[in-house]
């Protein structure tokens, strides 16, 4: 194929506008395909992070909106293999206004356990102590603090919706984390003091830290079994599974991603096939001349296929660049999906896209190239489009 490269390049450059349009069209489709495959990979094929494997989340079996008795915490602590249990309460609420841009996750947690549960969160010791020693203190992830320009000591007011209280918090620490780093954490004890007495005995979720990752499935089963005959049954799953359950709220995302990927690939095939058919038809007479000069049918086939593969691979590179840009756009979107916050086009998707580009280049040019190489010289020379 390499031998055909100079001629293929020359042919590609002849009708620059068409080649450019084809490349752009392929790039647009492949950029989409790249992002969708990156999402698919992030959602369904990545196992979660190393430290995640040690954490489980217990919630009410009925739904996330139905609370659990706070007394469950000490009972769960007794389960073999459990290192620590922490109250983890979604606060919801409103910061500034109800605009979606001002949405971020706020959790009431037990301040003395927070950084034990999340060993990958890095925070200076004096900030950690300041957070733990002051009941109205809070800590925020670096990107979140940057988003609002918060500095240590700033006041942050959250208006409650699930809880009928407004909280006045003081920022005492900013932590760095590789993942899921746009959250705000504050003292559960502060929330508990502020809410009506009838709400104090219930919390939304508990986070369990396992001593070892191997015992995680056993802990999940043991916890759920413990409360099976209680008024509030529990559902305990790994943090990863918990995150994934949110995805199912969007409907059948898997089918959506696959269906669109299929449609895009098919469109790609059509577009490239169409271009190659047009480009081959335009130069049938030229093919006749090449044959007269002694090019074999195989040679003709090679030239056409090389050109087509060249176009689609260039398009693929361009498209993958755009994909990465789209990923950056999605990373910045206000969402609580940690997977989206980390979205990149992984190497596996790059490899797959390039492979697909080569396949599309070959498949789309196959028929026109084949018929051009088979056409008798006389027919070629006489051909008038």
């Amino acid at each position: 194929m390499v031998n055909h490269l100079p001629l293929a390049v020359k042919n590609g450059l002849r009708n620059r506008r068409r080649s450019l349009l084809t490349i752009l069209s392929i790039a647009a489709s492949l950029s989409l395909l790249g992002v969708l495959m990156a999402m698919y990979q992030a959602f369904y094929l990545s196992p979660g992070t190393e430290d995640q494997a040690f954490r489980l989340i217990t919630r009410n079996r009925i739904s996330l909106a139905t609370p659990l008795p706070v007394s469950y915490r000490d009972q769960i602590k007794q389960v073999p293999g459990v290192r620590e249990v922490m109250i983890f309460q979604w606060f919801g609420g409103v910061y500034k206004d109800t605009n979606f841009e001002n949405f971020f996750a706020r959790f009431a947690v037990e301040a003395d356990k927070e950084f034990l549960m999340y060993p990958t969160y890095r925070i200076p010791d004096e900030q950690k102590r300041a957070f733990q020693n002051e009941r109205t203190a809070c800590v925020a992830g670096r990107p979140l603090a940057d988003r609002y320009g918060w500095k240590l000591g700033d006041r942050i007011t959250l208006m409650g919706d699930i809880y009928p209280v407004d909280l006045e918090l003081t920022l005492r620490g900013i932590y760095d984390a590789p993942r899921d780093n746009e959250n705000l954490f504050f003292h559960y004890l502060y929330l508990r003091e502020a809410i009506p007495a009838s709400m104090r005995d219930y919390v939304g979720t508990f986070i369990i830290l396992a001593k070892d990752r191997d015992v995680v499935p056993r802990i999940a089963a043991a916890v759920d079994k413990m409360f099976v005959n209680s008024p509030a049954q529990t559902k305990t799953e790994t943090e990863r599974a918990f995150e994934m359950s949110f995805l199912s709220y969007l409907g059948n995302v898997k089918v959506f991603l696959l269906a669109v990927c299929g449609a895009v690939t098919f469109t790609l095939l059509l577009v490239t096939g169409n271009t190659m058919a047009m480009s081959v038809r335009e130069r049938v007479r030229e093919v006749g001349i090449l044959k007269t000069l002694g090019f074999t049918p195989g040679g003709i086939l090679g030239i056409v296929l090389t050109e087509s593969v060249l176009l689609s691979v260039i398009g693929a590179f361009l498209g993958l660049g755009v994909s990465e840009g789209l990923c950056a756009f999605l990373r910045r979107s206000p969402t609580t999906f940690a997977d989206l916050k980390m979205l990149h086009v992984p190497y596996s998707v790059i490899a797959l896209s390039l492979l697909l580009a080569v396949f599309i280049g070959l498949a789309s040019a196959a028929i026109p190239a084949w018929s051009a190489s088979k056409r008798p010289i006389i027919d070629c020379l006489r051909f008038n489009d």
Partner: protein
Amino acid sequence: MAIPLSYNLRNLSVRWTTTVMTAVGIGLTVTVMVSILGLVEGLHTSLAATGNPRHVLVMRKGSTSELTSTMTRQTFQDLRFTPGILRSPSGDPLASLEMVTVMVLESPDRPEGMNITLRGLLPVGFTLREQLKVVEGRKFLPGNREVIVGKSISDRYPKARIGRTLRFGRGEWTVVGVFDSGLSAANSEVFADLDQVSADFFRSDILSSVLARTADETAARTLVSRLSSDRRFSVLALTEREYYEQQTKSGDVVKILGFIVAAIMAVGSSFAAMNTMYAAVSRRAAEIGTLRVLGFTRGSILLSFFLESVFLSLLGGTFGCLLALPLNLVQAGIGNWVTFSEITFAFHVGPKTMAEGLAFAMLMGVVGGLLPARMAASKEIVIALRET
């Protein structure tokens, strides 16, 4: 003078392979777009039909949904005689105290179970929902551990068919009937006796919300402001329609994602259409020259090629819409972020959605056809005639 449209039609049919390939490319883009629109439309229809503009929903102040709201029997007694709420012939206010919670139902494709809205209500609740019809079996009897399920629930969850028993709360419940309330979201709910359900969930005095009927929309708005401003209650009142319209936000993520996908696909398809049209123009250079010699103006050539591109895209658009039509038979479920439970709805690919799809196709044709048409129009006669 305009060039007859049949000229363009013949051209499209002579090069039919190119035409078909380009049109199918545009068509698939339109299918994706129409599917998304059909989903959003279906969700909207389902939720909008649930909200009666004459009904007022009362919840605890600060709550965002019936699920997180609380309503004591005392508050209900205090507010049910508020002026503006209609009375039944026997003199009782048409106000329904209800309890809303969720239960888990497993289905073959979701073995881990999906959250379903469970609603406890009194007979007056059925009076207010007059569009609701029991299509199979009967209503539950007050005081019994019986439930009736919405039509979508019974269709999607084999465990919730008539005669089966469901486990939730403190024990087992028998499914005694299936109801249909038209397109409304109630079809994704399970109904049971208020007192039985609230006792099972240890909430006999802490229920969820009140639904009240007023004479008309104006009266509904008056009641909303009267209840909201009454300091004794500290409640949030809104018309039922407003409440359900807020919930259509559940489809926003899918909608935005879908539009981005369709937009990027459209860019690709526009380039493809442009390619096809450029090829058509360069192939027909001599024809264009001849047309000019015959006296057709540059303007009419521009228009002619432009229309050809639009026509090509409409062909694709029609194909795309047809491809999306079977979606009308598909029932889908989407998680409701407000209630943390599932809303079931049917895709709705109707005339409006298809018109939007065709408009979208036309846009691709316009973008793809404008530049090639301009090139065709700007050709000089002599040069055009010499081109082969």
